[in-house]
């Protein structure tokens, strides 16, 4: 990709991820456990992992978290989001490289690990290990959300793979 195209594609991905984050704030999910969410923005990160490269996907994820954190959830929750985001990114990367999982499994692991990251930070920040009581619920909800996100990501990747984003032109 030449520089102009790269800039355009990256910006598009960040904008898309950010829009999905916004969309998610409009969907109220209240099952009594904080931290349960779909993780729509992870679709973009997944697609970027498969279609672009790992550095691009990581950058998109981090910029998305920064912008949506500052706009929607407040600066403090950035700590949660960054930990969850970074942890989930590296697990997804490893899962993808292992070739043993399809994009569905990668997404499921990403969703669950994101929640584990948040729980760890929450336990440290609030100084209460009791917060692990939420972990079973968050693991299962993360895995289920991961299936949904994974299915959509797969459909997206299958269609966009025809465009070779990495070709030199």
């Amino acid at each position, binding site marked *: 990709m030449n520089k102009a195209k790269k800039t355009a594609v990256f910006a598009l991905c960040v904008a898309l991820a950010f829009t999905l984050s916004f969309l998610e704030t409009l969907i109220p999910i209240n099952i*009594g*456990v*904080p*931290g349960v969410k779909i993780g729509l923005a992870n679709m973009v990160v997944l697609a970027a992992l498969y279609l672009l490269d790992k550095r691009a996907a990581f950058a998109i994820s981090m910029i998305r978290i920064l912008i949506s954190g500052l706009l929607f*959830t407040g600066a403090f*929750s950035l700590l*949660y989001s960054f930990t969850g985001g970074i942890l989930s990114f590296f697990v997804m990367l490893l*899962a993808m490289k*292992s070739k*043993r*999982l*399809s994009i*569905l*499994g990668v997404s*499921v*692991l990403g969703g*669950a690990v994101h929640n584990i990251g*948040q729980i760890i930070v*929450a336990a440290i920040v*609030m100084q*209460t290990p*009791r*917060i*692990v*009581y*939420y*972990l*079973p*619920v968050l*693991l*299962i909800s*993360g*895995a289920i959300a991961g*299936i949904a996100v994974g*299915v959509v990501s*797969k459909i997206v990747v299958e269609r966009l793979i025809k465009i070779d984003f990495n070709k030199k032109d």
Partner: protein
Amino acid sequence: MKKFGVKKGDIVAFAALLGVAALIFCALYFLAPKGNTVKIEVASQTVATLSLEEDTVYNVEIGGKTTNTVEIKDGKVSVMYADCPDKICVNHRAISKSGESIICLPNKVVISIEGEKTEVDGEAL
């Protein structure tokens, strides 16, 4: 399944996550702190607060008639007698952990264990 190209690893990953969640759930359940007081309520009114450490027998009386007999023994609470026909509370296993309860619906009796709080105050993640 085939259409979506699900790999064996995907199913393994999902199953592993469910397994870990179940494991943590069980671990937390069995390691739950023991409570220290027994609260007996009749129609949402607390009628007695007893210590879990002392072995006693308490009769719940409604209108001068004993409706339920609660026994505290070896740090466990059970219902020995109930005048209601269903006997759900009598057949309920003995409770000892904080947050557990035995409820007798016909008599509106709620026996619950208090003490160490198990719930975490919710804070948005």
